[in-house]
């Protein structure tokens, strides 16, 4: 498809810091290439602001390949914007039209406090991981041969699909309850599906769920919004699996 240029209006959340009161500010940006990514459009806006000696808009981003999970943004009321299965950095301006007004907001969730403008603090995810998202094996390299335990391909594939979570937090941001069940479910599932993870399965699910609750994430009411907005297509199955694992662990005490 041939590239073209569009002119757009933007309403972007500006907030000086965690304690300041924020508001939506209006900007006008002309000559945006439809081949640009959404973040390249924001770069262009920032360049315009700097040329006017104004403060640029802070937003999180890094790899810009849809894998690091650092980018976020609520775009026109949807996590990572209008396209499903896409991170904000992989969203392109060809999905917008000339004259559009685009609303850009940060993730909004109690467990993800705003740091500045569009940047939020997602370290709660790290703390959940620290509570049990690992196999307690030392890094000596002196384990058994990698092929010593055959793993059925279907299990390995499912574990991989769960492990493909990029930890961006779209599931939490999009959930009306602010629940982190999809994120935690994916991690629990990855290990539950592999023989290496089964050894500590019980402690893992209990500890991760406990930490999740302590961080102030909400409960799951099965609306399924998280699965729809997940840029990596992490399945709700993982939540079901986590619940099974949790019940099993609780029943066994």
């Amino acid at each position, binding site marked *: 498809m041939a590239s073209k240029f569009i002119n757009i209006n933007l309403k972007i959340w500006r907030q000086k810091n965690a304690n300041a009161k924020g508001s939506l500010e209006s900007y006008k940006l002309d000559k945006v290439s439809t081949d640009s*990514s959404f973040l390249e459009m924001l770069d262009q806006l920032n360049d315009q602001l700097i040329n006017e000696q104004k403060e640029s808009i802070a937003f999180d981003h890094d790899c810009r390949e849809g894998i690091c999970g650092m980018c976020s943004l609520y775009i026109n009321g949807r996590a990572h914007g209008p396209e499903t299965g896409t991170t904000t950095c992989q969203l392109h301006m060809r999905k917008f039209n000339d004259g559009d007004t685009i609303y850009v907001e940060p993730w909004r969730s109690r467990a993800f406090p705003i740091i500045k403008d569009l940047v939020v603090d997602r370290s709660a995810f790290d703390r959940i991981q620290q509570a049990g998202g690992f196999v307690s094996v030392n890094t000596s390299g002196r384990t058994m041969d990698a092929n010593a335990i055959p793993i059925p391909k279907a299990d390995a594939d499912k574990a991989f699909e769960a492990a493909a979570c990029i930890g961006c937090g779209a599931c939490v941001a999009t959930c009306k309850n602010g629940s982190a069940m999809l994120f935690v479910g994916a991690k629990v599932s990855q290990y539950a599906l592999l023989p290496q993870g089964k050894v500590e399965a019980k402690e893992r699910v209990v500890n991760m769920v406990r930490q999740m609750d302590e961080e102030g994430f909400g409960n799951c009411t099965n609306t399924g919004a998280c699965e729809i907005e997940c840029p990596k297509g992490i399945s709700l199955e993982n939540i079901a699996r986590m619940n099974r694992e949790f019940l099993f662990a609780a029943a066994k005490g």
Partner: protein
Amino acid sequence: MSILDSKIPAGHISDKWTDHKNHLKLVAPNNRPKIDVIVVGTGLAGASAAASFGEMGYNVKAFCFQDSPRRAHSIAAQGGINAAKNYQNDGDSVYRLFYDTIKGGDYRAREANVHRLAEVSGNIIDQCVAQGVPFAREYGGLLDNRSFGGTQVQRTFYAAGQTGQQLLLGAYSALSRQIGLGRVKMYHRHEMLDLVTVDGKARGIIARNLVTGELERHAAHAVIIASGGYGNVYFLSTNAMGSNVSAAWKVHKRGALFSNPCFVQIHPTCVPVHGTNQAKLTLMSESLRNSGRIWVPMKKEDAEAIREGRLKPTQIAEEDRDYFLERRYPAFGNLVPRDVASRAAKERCDAGFGVEANDTNEGVYLDFSTEIKSKGRQAAFAQGDHNPSNEKIILMGKKWIEEKYGNLFQMYEKITDDNPYETPMKIYPAVHYTMGGVWVDYNLQSTIKGCFVAGEANFSDHGANRLGASALMQGLSDGYFVLPYTVSDYLADEIRTGKISTDTPEFESAENEVKNSIEKFVSNKGTKSVDFFHKRLGLIMWNKVGMGRNEQGLKEAIEEIGTLRDEFYQDVFVPGDSNELNPELEKAMRVADLIELGQLMAVDALNRNESCGGHFREEYQDAEGETLRDDENFKYVAAWEYKGMDAINSVLHKEDLNYEFITIAARNYK
């Protein structure tokens, strides 16, 4: 100029590492909690090192500039990780991995380091599987492998096109476990801005809390730098936006030598540039060259018609296609090393056969149609259909491709709006990896005592060109299996040192220097953005210190970068304050270092009057356009000493490369 001591142990190449380890000093478990270790960077090398040191019982502080250690750019590595397991029984061995890596690096890497890397490669896979890394498997439940460039065996382990992600999450899980146990303290959204040395030893760092802007002093008995490569000196690269040279450069400024900065890997298969507002280039994994064939039209008029949209690639008949890698390098075909493939693509585009309709016509095809047919047929046969229809073959072939490369195909379609299952991908070389880095000895220690450098940030293992799927191998090897031994040897002499105070003149003056440079940027009321200068730097680097280099261009680059640096300090505008989250300030600090580095790269490239690996000096090529090395005069590691921000004053030191176990030869992939 001095001759550097690489501290390579004596003995046969296969015994060096084992013997060396047996003689390294140890720190007893009861002494480890008294010793502090700083790790800067949390990619594969940094996260694995921090986890390992935490596990051993040292006090570890780990730093990353991202919001979480899991975001480090190792996460974006796609294709795989090499290991000499020989699971495929195709003749692989430690020696072959060692040999392929030395040859792939065009005989500019250190033999002993590379052999060690090959030796520990198998353990890396064992370790990762034990950590729950979900590698791709065959139906029998065992691990699957594929091929990468510069090899004739299948030794690459992978997880779809997301191997880096899975390996990094594995290392991150090990790190998280140590953080949870209180043995590693994690400082995310922190950037190292200086190294503090006391009496010639690394004793800590100055870091900036990126959220509050506060400068912090952190002391340690050893500092490990694992901050990645410097590809972003070109502005456009496959690196993450935040990837930078600053931690490595600060160490260089404090006295560590910087080696082979001109050795840069330009990766052949990336999505071509689309426009001037572009901020970043995207890699299409080398693994695709297992299944894709690279070509341009045989006739210039066809190439022109394609660029003008009058012709589609699928309309070009088989006999009118030039599969130029298969033509020039029949033995390795599409799987020649990256530098060779990139130059061949550039040669065709420079000659007018490029297919991309951008300013430079720079693009070639990566075509999967042959593989779709062949794998589709195989899949149909496997289902018992020995007479499949053409439609069924294509359908099943696409399914096979999707399973192997689905995420890459999806990524390509999002960026270009083209469906690569139906039409060939368009690709072109882009800056991807930097082989050069901080000079380290066999123990990965820089020329500053107590300052160790690992992963892409050091120079040691890949010579003048890195083979695909070897970066992940090196990162984890350094972090899990090398540093724990060699740093402990250094720390054995530190058990009586006691806690190191940050309340000393050395910390004070380092902090003040950082404070002054920050204040200079925020109070410098210039008129141009940081990106304005960064883009200009990138253009100079790409045009004159890029895929093809020559004496005149390099001299111009050195001059132009000097001018650019002066303008940058005079005219850059950094909005906001120093005591808050300020992305423009972060960028300005990084670009200041990239400018100095860029100039040193040109100086290094000008000094190296030969072509080798990714360093292609146009004056030094054979009749067929292949690199022409000069082993008599340049079989050495160039290690530069910092002498102020103008790189023309940098002093060259040399480490001679001795090939005791491999016969040095012209690199031939034909």
